């Protein structure tokens, strides 16, 4: 489909490319993505090093916490436990062992209840994922319209008021807001539940009622989790749109006689959303962190709360596993954001501009 001429232009090669089933576009895109993936490898490696390092920077032996539940434990028992966890081996050996088990998604057993860590995490994953996805959707649904509207009439009423709200939102501690909401909506007004994911008589509900009940319980946690990101993204959307609207191609669109609405959405927004994709990818760690607060305060049995409890109880295998997983999820988020951006921006998807 692309002639030999085009082969010269988009890849910078100096020989003609014969007709092939793969378009040059696809090859360039694929190599870009592969390069990005390879760049993640050292980061992944460092994440595992850091996770592992956390456990061993602690004072005393990691098994002390397990030991402390039974003061009568003898020296032999202690030594046996250490051998079991491989704690009597040199550090780098321990790391290698842990790494190889982690690669097989075997995070060991929890110090608290001796259950496989992987199992504990998997049973909590859906809830955390639900909260994160819902809060992301909420953020997008509010922040994007907010930012766009503010950008279209900069300096006017809506812009000023929303800027004030954004600033206040930035500066509010989310855990305080959670407390506030609990006090107001949960205790005083009794409109919304303040803990758990199910009501007490959950068992008696039909399946639709169960879904609704869960949703009702999730309103506050999702709201709190979304709160921080809302301010940031809406401000970012605004500045991105303001910049886009100053571009020459917007002037061209208007000079063509297009109605303002089409100029704004079809021409403006499609460009303005591009940086937001990248920002969303970068906000994944904040989203995960936000879940920790929301889950802890609202007693949601999710990964964030698991992490908090594990930290408090010095349950190191769980802590290490979750730090690693958190890092991996972030990288996945970044990766997908990159892919989405590369796909959405033709300048990347179709390769660099030909030289003149």
């Amino acid at each position: 489909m692309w002639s030999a001429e085009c082969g010269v232009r988009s890849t910078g090669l100096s020989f003609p490319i014969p007709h092939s089933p793969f378009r040059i576009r696809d090859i360039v895109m694929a190599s870009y993505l592969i390069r990005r993936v390879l760049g993640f490898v050292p980061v992944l490696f460092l994440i595992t090093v850091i996770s592992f390092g956390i456990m061993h920077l602690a004072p005393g032996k990691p098994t002390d916490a397990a030991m402390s539940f039974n003061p009568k434990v003898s020296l032999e028992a202690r030594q046996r436990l250490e051998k079991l966890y491989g704690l009597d081996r040199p550090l780098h050996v321990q790391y290698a062992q842990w790494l190889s088990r982690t690669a097989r998604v075997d995070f060991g057993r929890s110090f608290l209840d001796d259950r496989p860590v992987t199992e504990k995490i998997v049973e909590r994953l859906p809830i955390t994922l639900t909260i994160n996805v819902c809060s992301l959707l909420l953020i997008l649904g509010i922040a994007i319209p907010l930012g766009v509207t503010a950008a279209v009439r900069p300096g006017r009423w809506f812009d000023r008021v929303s800027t004030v709200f954004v600033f206040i939102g930035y500066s509010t501690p989310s855990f305080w807001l959670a407390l506030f909401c609990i006090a107001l909506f949960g205790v005083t007004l009794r409109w919304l539940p303040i803990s758990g994911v199910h009501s007490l008589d959950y068992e008696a509900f039909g399946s639709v009622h169960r879904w609704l009940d869960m949703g009702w319980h999730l309103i506050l946690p999702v709201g709190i989790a979304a709160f921080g990101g809302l301010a940031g993204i809406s401000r970012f959307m605004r500045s991105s749109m303001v910049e886009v609207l100053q571009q020459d191609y917007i002037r061209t669109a208007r000079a063509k006689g297009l109605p303002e609405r089409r100029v704004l959405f079809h021409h403006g927004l499609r460009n303005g959303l591009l940086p937001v994709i990248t920002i969303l990818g970068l906000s994944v760690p904040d989203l995960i962190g936000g879940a920790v607060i929301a889950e802890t305060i609202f007693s949601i049995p999710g990964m964030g709360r698991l992490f908090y409890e594990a930290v408090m109880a010095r349950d190191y295998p769980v802590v290490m596993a979750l730090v690693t997983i958190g890092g991996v999820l972030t990288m996945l988020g970044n990766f997908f954001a990159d892919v989405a951006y590369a796909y959405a921006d033709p300048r990347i998807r179709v390769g660099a501009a030909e030289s003149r």
Partner: protein
Amino acid sequence: MPLLKIEELSVAYRREGRSTQAVAGVSFTIEPGEIIALVGESGCGKSSVALALTRLLPMPPAFVSGRVMMGHTSLLDAPEETLRAIRGGVISYVFQEPATSLNPVLTVGEQLVEAIELHTASRGGQAKRLAIEWLRRVGISSAEERLGAYPHEFSGGMQQRAMIAMALAAQPSLLVADEPTTALDVTIQVQILRLLRDLQRTLNLSVLLISHDLMVVERIAHRVGVMAAGKLVELGPVAQVLHQPGHPHTQQLLRYRSMMTLNRTRETHD
């Protein structure tokens, strides 16, 4: 009967309490079928005149006064819908930087078809065929494939050709070209100018050509107006203004251009 009558057009920009007068009482006419150029140094207000005609300047901070009459319609007072029909349909624009004047996330074809569907009766497949026809007409080869290409895949000259196609696809009466060749290589400049001249003849367009380059003007324009500090200081046929300048400012302009020679064959009308 002039196509456009501009009377005492003034443009002021108000920013942070300060007011700058960009255009101060400019008056001239644009006749049908002529190429009239506005020249002057940077900052003399010529681009502001071009954009003010169809209210393309951002209205705060810009303040426009005066009259721009097209027949019986006063463009500066007309309602927004009227103006939108005129933009692109009757008065079209081509801008200086073709690379940034085309939307990078839409294909050239989409942007061209958009203009066609807006101002003509063609739709869908017919509009597409018309788009291909126009791309060929402005000298873009492999037009059918190029429709699906993105602006960054085109060279500068091709981008400008595409912009011209987009501007002319609706068969406007007036084409406003704001420094159309300034951002291009010299050899491409000549090609684009020839293209403009040929299209103008074939379509019997009027062209308002904005430029700071007298060579460009001499090549294709019929009349030329010289602007300085927001005022129109001289106006007349190209031969007269450029060879027997009346105003001292024009004389100074002529003295400073280094590339033009009086003996060069002019590539214009009879």
